[in-house]
């Protein structure tokens, strides 16, 4: 496995007037070349903070890396200075965001913004950079790139803007692309176009992708591996098949069952997870999901569950998987 990114026991906190918000509380994962890792979870679970920390995009302070390691290729991100980050961002790792309107500069033409990104990292003449920009617009399938590059972002539709964002993110052939909810703001037919494009680019360039989303449908269609986050921790990580067909953590299972499928009609009641996620100002001492979990035991409220191996490369942070737990082995069925 050709490893691109290694995150080890990452803790990120925000110092606010109300106290320390422990947004990410010990996250460990790896991403290999050409792989799509999806990070799923509800809002506030720490998935976006994790991604932003990899690029050090969150303002520090208030954000603070409490401990942990982030290794991108051979570079240590945690120790990197802002100046070093300037050359890492865009070149080694780049990101596309949820809202393509607020991420493009409304006062610059699309072509100008693209060439700016290119000349920042590569020594190219203006003419060559412009050619490169057109090649990228072609790659993301924007019709009439020559003409389109002279237009401003407001002249593009939502889907087209997201394509421009992808072109910009790819401009220096990064090893890792972080897509933070890339299709959430788009309509389903446009979402299908963008996902198709991402898939194609991944196959063409062999870029690793971290896909951050809350839509399990998007995950199923793209991801090779899936990490499920809850209350600042990864509760389960495994291949897409592991997560969708052999999920072992009660949160993952409840999440999957709370989605209506097209075969269901209203005679089947949706499973709902009662309650709301815990407040990360005062995270619970035990398992974060304990208060909403149907299988909660005494130990869940007092001690953090470690990651138990439930299959090859399939980890689940739940005390039900402990060998002393009587129901450990029948946990797999739905």
């Amino acid at each position, binding site marked *: 496995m050709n490893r691109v990114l290694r995150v080890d026991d990452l803790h990120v906190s925000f110092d606010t007037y109300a106290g320390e918000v422990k947004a990410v509380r010990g996250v460990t994962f790896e991403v290999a070349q050409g792989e799509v890792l999806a990070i799923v979870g*509800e809002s506030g679970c720490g998935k976006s903070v994790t991604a932003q920390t990899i690029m050090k995009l969150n303002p520090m302070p208030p954000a603070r890396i409490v401990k942990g390691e982030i290794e991108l290729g051979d570079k240590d991100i945690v120790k990197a200075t802002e100046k070093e980050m300037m050359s890492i961002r865009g070149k080694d790792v780049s990101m596309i965001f949820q809202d393509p309107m607020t991420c493009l500069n409304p006062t610059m033409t699309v072509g100008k913004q693209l060439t700016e990104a290119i000349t920042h990292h590569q020594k190219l003449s203006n003419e060559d950079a412009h050619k490169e920009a057109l090649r990228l617009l072609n790659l993301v399938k924007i019709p009439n790139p020559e003409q389109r590059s002279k237009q401003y972002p407001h002249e593009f539709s939502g889907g087209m803007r997201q394509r421009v964002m992808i072109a910009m993110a790819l401009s220096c052939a990064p090893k890792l692309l972080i897509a933070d909810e890339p299709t959430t703001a788009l309509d*389903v*037919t446009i979402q299908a176009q963008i996902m*198709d494009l991402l898939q194609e680019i991944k196959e063409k360039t062999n870029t690793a992708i971290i896909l951050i989303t809350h839509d399990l449908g998007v995950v199923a269609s793209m991801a090779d591996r899936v990490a499920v986050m809850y209350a600042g921790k990864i509760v389960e990580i495994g291949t897409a098949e592991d997560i*969708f067909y052999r999920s072992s953590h009660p949160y993952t299972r*409840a999440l*999957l069952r709370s989605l209506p*499928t097209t075969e269901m009609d*209203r005679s089947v009641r949706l499973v709902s*997870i009662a309650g709301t996620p815990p407040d990360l100002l005062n995270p619970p001492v035990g398992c974060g999901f304990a208060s909403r979990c149907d299988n909660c035991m005494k130990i869940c409220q007092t001690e953090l569950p470690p990651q138990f191996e439930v299959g090859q490369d399939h980890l689940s942070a739940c005390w039900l998987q402990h060998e002393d737990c009587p129901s450990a082995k029948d946990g797999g069925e739905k």
Partner: protein
Amino acid sequence: MSKKTPLNLTDNNKLVELQQVSKHFRVSEGILKAVNNVNFDIYKGETLGLVGESGCGKSTLGKVLMGIYPPTHGKILYHGKKDIEIKRSTHFDYSKMAQIIFQDPYSSLDPRMTVGSIVEEGMIIHKMYDKKKRQERVYELLELVGLNREHANRFPHEFSGGQRQRIGIARALSIEPEFIVCDEPISALDVSIQSQIINLLHDLQEKLGLTYLFIAHDLNIVKYISDRIAVMYLGNIVELATSDELYNNTLHPYSQALLSAVPIPDPDKEAQKKRQILTGDVPSPINTPKGCPFAGRCPRATDICRQEKPVLEMKQGHLVSCHHVEK
């Protein structure tokens, strides 16, 4: 849970009748046809799903149905507790029978009002009950939607998104309406909270015999909650059928593309699925060309599609507007 009673789609069970309803807006570039000559009925006790992409006019249609926008052409007849035509002069009477639940539970609640006064306001306006009885009703309603009576003295910012949506639902129910327009009530919520709200809406419908117009863009959820589904494109209804019929026998090319674009949370099914990807974007609803509104993106479009606008008619057991669907 009990199976739902079969739909009664007879004429005397109609609740809302839309007759050639259009809503046009005058903008600087011309006329924006947000809703264009729409004809359909909503029956008592059903949930009618209304789906389409952003900008297709589904929310405008919801607002026209609420009497918030008067229609530019056509009329809407309402056969509830009172028989009325929905228009400006009848708006007060109508608002006692129909209510709306909004998409954004953050901006649709007044931050300076307590939850109790938010829920009570409608009853005051419609002069329902005396002060003491109203207070009791507020408590009753809060408990009905799964909140506590202690919540009545708090302010909206103290609640999470799902709880706020419950407050919005309690407010809509406060004046005992028969018809509720749900304008994307769950799209701002997290997955695990969405199912709570859907179950709540479903229970309330059974308990109170409500009729819903459920506007959404998440097709899996619409399929689950609706009895019938209307698919909208560029201000026009292109297909209308019962939800099983629409999913199993999709006729309109746009509905087909829309359904195939929805990702299914199941990797094997996703891998097998043949996705029909539409090229291009939804065209602007300003100064639309004549002919079929979908012709520009349709893989089956021919000359007739560009010349003549198809009408919504009964073909193969459900309503569809397409030249290329056989009768």
